[in-house]
């Protein structure tokens, strides 16, 4: 049984312009012990997916359809009480910018202890022991536990957040842009720590980031999102042999330290307005290969086992890959 199933998830936001379909029919599955990488550009809805899973959508947002099942239980069908009991014990979060993720007026230790206290009765001494243990685990000095968040550096805060996520030994950890804003060296350390947890403790992870290299290095499976929809979903092949033009575009645009001489190519245009998205494929307006068929919703086509692409033209993927390497293909059409 999968640990987490997200099925046709739809999340909408009320905005002044109308309802924005921030997430529109997203489905994926996380098996126990698996790390799923969710990659996409800003505004594609990847953080909204995380928030929906954790049940912390802002007041303006709501789940409009689909289901999120944790260990077979539908989160939508739970009472608030059950939901609250489930949170953090089963699904914990390592958020973006830990700077603001910790309450500045409480010590780090008390915030960790609070998470424990909310879910299980544990004597204070044991709680402290547990926190010290976790601090060791993430590479922090246990005596720093009684410091306030501002006394930590960015990297230390992020480690503390990891410790906090681990505090109840949850089944799934959602890491939402865990290294954004951190320096390369620190980012590397944090990622290694996360991967370590995943490898050593067998934690299932949902790793959300805009950095394709991070996903490529750390994930077993990859979901590429664009404008609230899943474009491509699969194993590492997603980046190695992409099918979807968007994934292709991303790979071409991504500067990789390992490749020496390759022209970087950007994708012209801007993402669609989510209040009134175009019919059919959301990428069509920016896609150099778009045809009239793209005006209808693209089918999900399994191009290889476990590798699903939402495109009408998967059959032409080979040709796309060739043409996509040519910057002229992506030349912005004159308006």
């Amino acid at each position, binding site marked *: 049984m999968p640990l987490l199933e997200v099925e046709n998830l739809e999340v909408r936001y009320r905005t002044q312009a109308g309802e924005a379909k921030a997430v529109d029919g997203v489905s994926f599955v996380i098996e126990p012990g698996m790390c799923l990488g969710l990659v996409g550009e800003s505004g594609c809805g990847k953080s909204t997916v995380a*928030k929906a899973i*954790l*049940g*912390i959508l*802002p*007041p303006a947002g709501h789940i409009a359809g689909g289901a999120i099942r944790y260990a077979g239980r539908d989160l939508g069908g739970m009472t608030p009480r059950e*939901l*609250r*009991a*489930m*949170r*953090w*014990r089963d*699904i*914990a*979060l390592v*958020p*973006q*910018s830990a700077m*603001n*993720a*910790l*309450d*500045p*007026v*409480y010590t780090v230790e008390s915030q960790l202890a*609070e*998470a424990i206290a*909310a*879910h299980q009765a544990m004597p204070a001494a044991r709680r402290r022991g547990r926190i010290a243990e976790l601090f060791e685990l993430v590479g922090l000095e246990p005596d720093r536990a009684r410091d*306030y968040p*501002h*006394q930590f550096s960015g990297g230390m805060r992020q480690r503390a957040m990891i410790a906090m996520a681990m505090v109840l030994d949850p089944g799934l950890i959602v890491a939402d842009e865990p290294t954004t804003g951190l320096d390369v060296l620190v980012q590397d350390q944090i990622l290694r720590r996360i991967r370590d947890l995943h490898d050593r403790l067998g934690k299932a992870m949902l790793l959300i980031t805009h950095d394709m290299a991070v996903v490529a290095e750390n994930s077993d499976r990859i979901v590429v999102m664009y404008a609230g929809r899943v474009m491509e979903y699969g194993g590492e092949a997603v980046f190695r042999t992409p099918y979807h033009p968007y994934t292709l575009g991303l790979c071409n645009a991504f500067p990789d330290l390992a490749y020496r001489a390759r022209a970087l190519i950007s994708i012209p245009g801007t993402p669609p307005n989510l209040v009134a998205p175009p019919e059919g494929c959301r990428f069509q307006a920016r896609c150099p290969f778009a045809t009239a068929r793209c005006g209808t919703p693209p089918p999900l086509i399994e191009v290889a086992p476990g590798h699903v692409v939402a495109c009408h033209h998967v059959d032409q993927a080979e040709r796309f890959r060739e043409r996509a390497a040519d910057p002229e293909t992506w030349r912005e059409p004159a308006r």
Partner: protein
Amino acid sequence: MSRLAHAFSRRLLLLALTMWCILTILFALFRLLPGDPAAIFVDNNMSIEMIEHQKQLWGLNDPWWVQYIRYIANMALFRFGDSFFQNQTVAAILLEKITNTCAMIFPALVISVVLGTIIGAFAGWRRGGRLEQATVTTALILHSAPSFFVGILVLMVFSYQLRWLPPGGMTSPGGPEGFWDLITSADYLRHLILPCMVLVSREITGPVLLVRSSMLEIKGADFIDILRAKGLPEWRILVHATRNALLPLVTYIAVMTGLLLQGQVLLEIIFAWPGLGRELVTALADLDYQVAQGAVYVMALTILLLNLVADMLYGFIDPRSR
């Protein structure tokens, strides 16, 4: 020297500097405005010799800078001299009046802050609700009504018409004496209700609006999401949010106390409260300039000290600034 101690000493120095400027302004006001200061002290009935002697006594014949230095030195040492008309030291008079004023404003302050925080926290937490709109609007209207107007209205209703509550003063004639007996007596509490009500109705606005807006700000903070994700019950999250929202309130309370201390002239007159503001009005009318000068000085000093305390307190309360 620790950072805090250094910050503190720096602030103290600045405070002294500021106070010196204010004292200089006061000195200039009382001595450089048109008119002969001697005219304040002396009577037309006196012989010229007596007046000259009197001027000598007050040091008014000295050059202005000698007077200035003496004045600054005296003020710095809290030697305000004696009242012209009440044979008591100005310091003793002011102390008594400040105590009385505090006996009015502190209860009001505590109620305003506590109640205001609670209301503001709920208003901010339940953003957009009808309750919130009502709260904010009521707060604004209460704040806008001039306190002297409201004061007279409540006196008319509760005191003169309904006769439920006493019409002013700190106690009934013959009420308890001695500070502790007084402020623990039911009589004092009865006298406190009306002025306190007027003050609270006005002063509660600040905490309500302040806590509400900082609540709104904090509500959007990431850590609130984390708290929710941690599965904490709503009230625990509210506690977290409120604690954060209270930080700016600390500064506000100090500023508000300062404002209250200087600004209760109107209520003190309307409620016949023997406080500092009323003392100042009377002193000015009586030309008891020693008292007036001392009162303004004490008020300015209190304001500045409270600001200092607020800053320092903020340093203690907010771990980030430690």
